């Protein structure tokens, strides 16, 4: 029989022998089907009331053994698969793989191709950072507004990608020794147009967000990542720089033609979620500077090294590691070639967002469960890359 509500006994809390109410910790599994996990990702949280006591990330739901697939096909065959690692930034993934292979095989890339790569990579950084901020604010409860503003801007970049490479997200654009198709003047004009428009969008975006009291209250001093821990845990990209780690591979390795371009590396000092938000805004501004220089300086010439064969491409035995500064951090490829050299013997991806998750627990412990999603949002993960 269902008791009428009025008859229900009032629930009382009885203090224990020491006068304190005894409570239990609660284990909550956030995800894998949760919109704030940016895909199929799970966090096993132990909560004390609302605060996080422990948190273990659980991943692998999207695991498809990308590395083994690559070890079963020719070098070129994995290029389209790298698009699907971090499906937001296929251009930089392509570049990282091409760079690693070029390093192993000792291929010299023509100048124009290098500039095209820089242009594409910086456009990718723009679209990634603006969307990440959008997603993070979505997790904060800003609903779609900032995200859709970001998507509107991203649309222009994707249109350019489609016009150049044929596809909006799965570009498959880079080749060993260059890029697949040359940029036409029309494409360059579009890129210039994007570069001139983007600051306006950024200004608007910042007006919407940077001083917003709600954003400040929710993000400042939340999920602090100390500098030493960031270095020790191999954190890279905007996340490390928000903690004040001065490490940008574009400056350190000077791969491509970054050595010739002038830009600064913004650094945060506290390493909280707000810093990670703001560092991305600043990085976008630097990216625009790089874009403008690259568009100004791009030389004429071949877009691909002519001696590189498309088929029957071989690499002498040995190994090597090539890495670039992807929008999410250091994206590296460790490749081993053995006798024959027609396909990778070992193909390993060093995915930045996977390694950046290492310290998720450290950042979340002590915060409220509602902050966990914000912290995760500020890490900037893409599950295609985490799980591979």
């Amino acid at each position: 029989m269902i008791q009428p509500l009025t008859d229900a006994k009032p629930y009382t809390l009885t203090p224990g022998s020491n006068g304190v109410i005894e409570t239990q910790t609660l284990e909550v599994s956030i995800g894998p089907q949760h919109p704030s996990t940016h895909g199929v990702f799970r966090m096993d949280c132990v909560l004390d009331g609302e605060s996080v006591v422990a948190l273990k990330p659980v991943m692998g739901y999207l695991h498809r053994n990308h590395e083994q697939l690559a070890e079963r096909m020719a070098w070129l065959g994995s290029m389209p698969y790298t698009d699907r690692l971090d499906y937001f930034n296929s251009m930089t993934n392509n570049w990282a793989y091409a760079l690693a292979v070029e390093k192993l095989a000792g291929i010299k890339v023509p100048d124009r191709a290098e500039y095209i790569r820089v242009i594409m990579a910086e456009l990718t950084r723009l679209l990634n950072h603006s969307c990440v901020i959008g997603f993070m604010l979505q997790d904060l409860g800003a609903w779609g507004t900032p995200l859709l503003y970001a998507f509107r801007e991203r649309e222009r970049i994707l249109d350019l990608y489609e016009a150049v490479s044929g596809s909006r997200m799965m570009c498959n654009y880079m080749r060993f020794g260059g890029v697949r198709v040359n940029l036409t003047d029309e494409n360059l004009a579009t890129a210039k147009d994007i570069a001139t428009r983007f600051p306006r969008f950024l200004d608007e975006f910042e007006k919407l967000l940077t001083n917003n009291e709600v954003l400040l209250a929710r993000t400042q001093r939340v999920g602090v990542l100390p500098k030493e821990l960031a270095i020790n845990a191999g954190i890279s990209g905007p996340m490390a720089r928000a903690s004040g780690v001065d490490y940008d591979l574009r400056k350190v390795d000077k791969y491509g033609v970054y050595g010739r371009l002038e830009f600064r590396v913004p650094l945060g000092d506290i390493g909280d979620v707000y810093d990670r938000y703001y560092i991305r805004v600043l990085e976008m501004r630097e990216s625009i500077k790089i874009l403008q220089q690259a568009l100004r300086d791009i030389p004429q010439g071949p877009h691909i090294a002519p001696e590189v064969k498309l088929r029957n491409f071989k690499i002498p035995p040995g190994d090597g590691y090539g890495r670039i500064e992807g929008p999410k951090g250091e994206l590296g490829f460790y490749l081993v070639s053995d006798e024959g050299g027609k396909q990778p013997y070992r193909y390993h991806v060093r995915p930045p967002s996977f390694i950046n998750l290492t310290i998720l627990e450290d950042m979340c412990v002590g915060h409220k469960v509602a902050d966990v999603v914000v912290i995760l949002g500020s890490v900037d993960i893409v599950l295609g890359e985490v799980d591979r």
Partner: protein
Amino acid sequence: MGFIGKGLFEGMVVTARNFVGSYFDKERLVTVQYPEERVQVPENSRTFPFLVFDKDSDPVASMRCVACKICEVECPPQCIYIVMDRDEKGKPQQRPKVFDIDISVCMQCQICVEVCPFDAIKMDNNYEKSQYGRFDELVEHLPELLKSNEFYNKIKPTEATAVDAKLKADAEKKAKKAAPAAKPAATAAKPAAPAAPKPAPVAAPTAKIAIPDDAPFTPEQRQWLSGYLSTVAASGVAPAAAAPVAGTPAAPATEAPAGNWPWHDPGLGMQRRLDLAKETPIADKLMAAMAQTDCHACGYDCRGYADAIATGAETDLSLCLPGEAETANMLKKLMQEAGKL
């Protein structure tokens, strides 16, 4: 710093401006009411591959694909399946009988297009391909895959024009190469001439010797050969100059202009080709065992691959994709016969 809530207020102004602006400003309103409205896709845009044919009257005969299977091998997710067409006698027809692309697996990467040496496969830009099933419905067969060159020109004008120009230039070059090839052959007596297919008529001192129609010669060659043999037969002198040349490995075959080897004709069967190359050095015999498509599937042309095997630069005997197992086995056999294996 202003009052508390200034940031919020400013944000509101931004959203309000966007909201109102979306009614007037094209920049702020970017959505399209699909499917009533459609955006024009850029020319480069790609979805799934299709096969190009040249003549509307006979798509199957005029398709550019020669079933060399390069795309089948190179396709990263392995979604292409090709069976070469053969006539009743089992002679390869240089075109696919079955050409399937499983578009549920195809990842639109365009690698098949890039590796095809014959410009036979290109990317479509039709993005509306939904089906009611996920098995057979999503496998495209030859009839669906074949699209005309006009269609290709329509969807990708710039690219198609360039391809057309390239193909035309190639054809012209080939024709030009074939034309002078006949002339020097007359003086230098290239291996091609003496190795003519079983020139039994030589014995018969008829005035005119006809070269069989299916013999692998260009019209010019045929004319010359016919004349040559006729004069030889008429004078009653054996082609003295020619006979020794045929047997000597002295003349490195690579010097001969392409297309001047009698067996270099994909229309001939394997046995026929080998017969034609019977008296020749090992490299030529090996070459005769290839599929003769010059498709570069092996990384060389037919000549180059044969030379590479003969010199030992290439040890893999299974690289000739269009020749399938037949060629691989024959290569092995020939190498064993020559004592090189």
